């Protein structure tokens, strides 16, 4: 809908696009969406491979952290930024993914990693379907309240069933690192970073392709005006539930990647603060674009690091150091909404437009 409008409004832009079609950019744009996304993902994976091979193990771990946060925030982007439903509970889906991974590794040790990850996605999608169907009639603050209860309540399940889920200590397990054939070439943490990014990029290709297609259009129509979308024949309830399912699947897969990296699943890593930080990262990165999820994920990992280092460098106590990232995120949320409502991606695209206009 939006693109047809733009075409009507700006014939100049259309001719510019036609002339651009001759260059390499034109070739890129003439590709169908899916291969284009796959090629971009391949390039990103190569970039990660280069990045992790020139840096040490600790950096590789951080790069992997960015990867799974990226996936969780991107899933939230689909839900909040595209379909307009606010969820404060995506940390709960990460919890589901992490515990599914831990249980699979502990009880079916022969299952290959791909099966474990798929099981985590399936568990997350199932939970997302239940939550989405139960809350499909809710909107705004009502939905936020219900998902808030989910974020606080679900990790407590691990405490209720300590025999199966390990109580407050959580579950510990060990996974194989790099395959023996590559043992001289890559370290375990580099291999794990690559695996995480492979999974994340695959999921992102699915996300990007769906959000460009009919489903994404329907979601945006519902976000902009639910009643009008319903009048236009869009199945509002079903689309909302599907958005919830995809978002929960992404969150769960992100949790699975986290468990794969750390080899643990503990209830204390899935606090309300995690769910709220994911939302904060989303808003910081910019609502309404998957690129925003990348900036948000980078901020989640590196701002936390910077906050801790700053507190240590200034000789402040551990109380300050432990809480600095949370305070920082809170302040940033407020500042962004007041001064810069489109986030980093909004500012970047405005910058890009003004550069091209010149």
């Amino acid at each position: 809908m939006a693109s047809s409008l733009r075409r009507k409004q700006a014939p100049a832009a259309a001719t510019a696009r036609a002339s651009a079609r001759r260059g390499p950019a034109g070739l890129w744009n003439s590709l169908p969406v899916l291969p284009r996304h796959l090629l971009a993902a391949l390039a990103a994976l190569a970039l990660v491979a280069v990045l992790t091979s020139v840096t040490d193990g600790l950096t590789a771990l951080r790069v992997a952290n960015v990867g799974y946060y990226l996936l969780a925030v991107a899933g939230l982007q689909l839900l909040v930024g595209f379909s307009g439903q606010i969820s404060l509970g995506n940390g709960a889906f990460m919890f589901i993914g992490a515990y599914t991974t831990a249980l699979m590794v502990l009880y079916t040790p022969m299952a290959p990693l791909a099966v474990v990850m798929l099981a985590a996605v399936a568990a997350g999608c199932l939970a997302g379907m239940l939550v989405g169907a139960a809350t499909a009639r809710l909107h705004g603050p009502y939905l936020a309240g219900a998902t808030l209860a989910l974020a606080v309540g679900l990790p407590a399940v691990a405490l209720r069933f300590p025999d199966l889920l390990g109580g407050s200590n959580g579950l510990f397990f060990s996974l194989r690192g790099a395959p023996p054939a590559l043992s001289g070439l890559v370290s375990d943490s580099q291999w794990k970073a690559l695996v995480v990014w492979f999974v994340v990029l695959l999921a992102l290709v699915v996300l990007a392709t769906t959000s460009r297609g009919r489903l994404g259009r329907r979601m945006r129509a519902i976000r902009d005006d639910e009643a009008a979308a319903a009048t236009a024949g869009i199945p509002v309830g079903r689309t909302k539930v599907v958005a919830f399912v995809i978002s929960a699947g992404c969150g769960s897969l992100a949790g699975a990647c986290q468990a794969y990296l750390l080899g643990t699943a503990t209830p204390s890593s899935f606090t309300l603060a995690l769910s709220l930080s994911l939302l904060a990262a989303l808003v910081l990165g910019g609502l309404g674009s998957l690129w925003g999820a990348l900036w948000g994920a980078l901020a989640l990992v590196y701002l936390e690091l910077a906050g801790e280092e700053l507190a240590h460098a200034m000789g402040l106590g551990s109380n300050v150091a432990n809480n600095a990232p949370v305070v920082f995120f809170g302040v940033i949320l407020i500042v962004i909404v007041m001064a810069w409502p489109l986030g980093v991606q909004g500012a970047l695209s405005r910058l890009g437009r003004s550069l091209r206009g010149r």
Partner: protein
Amino acid sequence: MNHFIDLTLNGIANGAIYAALGLSLVIIYQATRVVNFAQPALALIAVYLAYAVYLATGSYWTGFAVALASGTLMGVLAERLLIRPVHGRSPLSAIIVTLGLLLALQGAAGMVWGNGDYSFPYPMDFRGRFSPAGAFGLGAVAVVTLLLFALYRFTPLGLRMRAAALHPESARLSGVRVGLMLTAGWGIASAIGALAGMLAAPPFLSPNALDAVFVYGIAAAVLGGLESPFGAVAGGLLLGVGLSYVSGYAGPELTTLAALAILVVVLSVRPDGLFTRPVARKV
């Protein structure tokens, strides 16, 4: 049977706390159409201040007064400095600002007072079946509800506040200072939130002490329909009793999930809560 009666009484006492927090959310929602997710953090800071004063003076009631006063002040400041600038933008903006305030204040409490637990005193004796402390909580919430009712129903200030919330434009034309009324609403609501915090904090005070209570408070407000103070009180008491049964018969770890279940069941029957009339919308 004895166990059942114990659970019921306990549930009513807890429900009063949820009702108070629900009330504070409803008052703000009525006035500014914002769910104040920062309410537990405002209450938390107020309770920490009360604790500091209690340690310094040794008097619980001085601390209590400080909590209510600082709660009011913080509510007023939050409305003036943070909510007013995003007024009229998308509802998401206001939600995100209050969430930001929640993170910032909770982290700040951890920075100043540490993440550990302090033992926090009860206002009165808390032992026994329906303890004086429980009765005090229930009584305080009942008094607050009656005062609120009287305020909205019988005083010029209450009339102006209702006018400012319902029809800001017409109210402004009739000479009501709408902005001031919204600020007053936030102040009153945060004072009630601080009261809920003082009732909910014992026996231990930590930066996350009010998280679960907040979830129940927001559940109570949503059950009641977010727009009806009476609904919030009824929702809080219902939820308190219901959760007390779950905690007593199925395990205390499941109470939050049970709150979610109750919320989902009630809202799937009445998506706008128990006590609101459906609104027609023109397209």
